[in-house]
C-alpha cells in the first residue's frame, strides 16, 4: 500500500531520469526490436512505386528545423526510392530554416556519384518566402514565382524546368510538412487535384488523417515509425530502423507506468472502500 501510494505521488524527476536511461541505453547497445508495416506507409510506397522514369516530383520541405530528427531520415528513405524509380525532382523550401537540409541531402545521398545531373534530373529552388501566398503563386506559375534557383541560375536555363510550368506538370507532390499543412493542401493540392504524399511528424499525423480519408493525401509517413517501415519496404535499413529501439522502449516505459499508475489508483480506492465499510 505504501509502495503504491508512493508510486502515485512519484516525483516527475524520477520519471525524467528513467526516460533518459531508457533512451540512452539502446543507442549505446542496440537490441533490434521487430518492426511491421502500416497501411499509411504502404500507400506512400505504392504511390512512389507507380511513377514512371522521367516523371517529375515536387519535393516540398516545410517543417520546423527542430523536427529534423523526424524528417531527415524520412527524406533520405523516400529520395532513395525516387532515385530508384529514375524520377526527376524539384526541391522547394517554404521556411528559411529548412533550406540547409536540401544541400545536406544531395551530399549524404551522393547525388553526383549516382550520376544525377543538376538541372536535368533535379533542381533546388531553395526558399520561396510567403507560405500560403507563395504556395498559391508557385502552383499557378512556377517560372514567375521562382525566377531563379538556389544557385542563381535562371529558370529558363534549367532543362528540367522546360517541361514544368505550373502545378499540373508535376506527376506527384511529396511534402515533408509539419506546419502550414492546410495551406499546402488548400493552395497546391486541392485546386489542381494532384496526387500528394506527405511525411509528417508524430504530432501532425493525426491531424492529417482526415485528408487521407478524403483522398486529398494519398499516403503518409508517420514520424520515425513511418521511416523504419519504409526502410523495411525498400529493404534498406537506415537511421529510422536504428532509432526504433530507443523509441519503442520509451513507449513501453510509458505504457508500463500508466498501467502501474492505474493499478495503484484502483487498489488505493479499493482499500479506502473496504476501510469505510469496516467503519
Amino acid at each position: 500500500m505504501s509502495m503504491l501510494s508512493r508510486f502515485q505521488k512519484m516525483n516527475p524527476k524520477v520519471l525524467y531520469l528513467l526516460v533518459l536511461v531508457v533512451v540512452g541505453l539502446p543507442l549505446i547497445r542496440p537490441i533490434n526490436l521487430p518492426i511491421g508495416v502500416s497501411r499509411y506507409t504502404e500507400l506512400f510506397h505504392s504511390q512512389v512505386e507507380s511513377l514512371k522514369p522521367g516523371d517529375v516530383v515536387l519535393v516540398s520541405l516545410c517543417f520546423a528545423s527542430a523536427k529534423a530528427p523526424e524528417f531527415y531520415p524520412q527524406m533520405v528513405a523516400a529520395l532513395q526510392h525516387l532515385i530508384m524509380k529514375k524520377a526527376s525532382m524539384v526541391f522547394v523550401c517554404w521556411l528559411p530554416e529548412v533550406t540547409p537540409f536540401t544541400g545536406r541531402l544531395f551530399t549524404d545521398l551522393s547525388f553526383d556519384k549516382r550520376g544525377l545531373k543538376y538541372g536535368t534530373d533535379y533542381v533546388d529552388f531553395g526558399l520561396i518566402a510567403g507560405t500560403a501566398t507563395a504556395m498559391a503563386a508557385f502552383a499557378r506559375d512556377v517560372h514567375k514565382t521562382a525566377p531563379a534557383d538556389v544557385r542563381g541560375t535562371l529558370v529558363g536555363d534549367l532543362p528540367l524546368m522546360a517541361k514544368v510550368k505550373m502545378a499540373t506538370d508535376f506527376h506527384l507532390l511529396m511534402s515533408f510538412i509539419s506546419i502550414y499543412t492546410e495551406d499546402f493542401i488548400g493552395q497546391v493540392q486541392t485546386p489542381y487535384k494532384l496526387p500528394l504524399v506527405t511525411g509528417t511528424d508524430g504530432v501532425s499525423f493525426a491531424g492529417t488523417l482526415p485528408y487521407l480519408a478524403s483522398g486529398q493525401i494519398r499516403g503518409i509517413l508517420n514520424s520515425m515509425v513511418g521511416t523504419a517501415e519504409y526502410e523495411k519496404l525498400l529493404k534498406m535499413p537506415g537511421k529510422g530502423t536504428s532509432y526504433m529501439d530507443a523509441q519503442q522502449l520509451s513507449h513501453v516505459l510509458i505504457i508500463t507506468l500508466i498501467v502501474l499508475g492505474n493499478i495503484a489508483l484502483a487498489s488505493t480506492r479499493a482499500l479506502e472502500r473496504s476501510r469505510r465499510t469496516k467503519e
Partner: protein
Amino acid sequence: MVKFNLRKDVAFAIVFFVGVLTAVEYFVALPDLRRIVADLQSWGTIIAAFSLGVGTINLIVIHGRRVSSRTQGYYNNFVLLLALTVTILIGLWGTNMHPAYQFIYFNALVPSDTAVWSLLAFYIASAAIRTMKARTKEGVILLITGILVLIKNTPAMGVIWGGFTIIGEWLLSVPNVAATRGIMIASAIGIIALGLRVLLRQERTSLGG
C-alpha cells in the same frame, strides 16, 4: 448620431475593404483582382516584417534597463544583448553564409532549438502518466484510446498480437477523424462569424478598441 471619427473609421474601412477583397478573390477568376490581392498580401508581409523592429526595440529596452540598473543576474541580460548584437553584425557584415555565422547557427542556435524541443519528451511522458487515469468516464475513454494507440505505435507489441495495430489504426481513422472533423466544421463556422464581426466592426478590441 454617430460622430465621424477619422482616426478609427479609416482603419476600419481598410479592414473591411481588404478583408472582403481577399475573401472574394479566392472564388472569382478575375486576373486583375488576383494581382491586386497578391500585392496586398505581399504588403502585409512587409508590414509584419517592419513590426519586427517594434518587438526588437521592446527586447532591447527591457534587457538594457536591467543591465543599466544592475538588477540581480543582469549579466544574463547582458549576454542576451551581446548575442543579439554579434549575430546581427556578423549576419549583415558577411551575409548569413559567413563561417562565423554558420558556426553560431549550427552550434548554438540549432542544438538549443532541438533541446527545448526535446524537453517535450519528458513533459509528455509525465503528462501522460499523470492524466491517463481512470477517474471519470471521460478519463477512462482517454486512458483506453491512449494506451491502445501507444501500443500500436510500438511495432514490437504488434508482434505479440496483430490485433493491436488494427485497433490502433481504427481508433485513429474512425473516432479520431470524426471528432477532428466535427471540431473543424464548428471552428470554420466560428471563423466565419468572427470574420463577419470584425468586418462589420462589432469586434473592435483586436484593433485597439
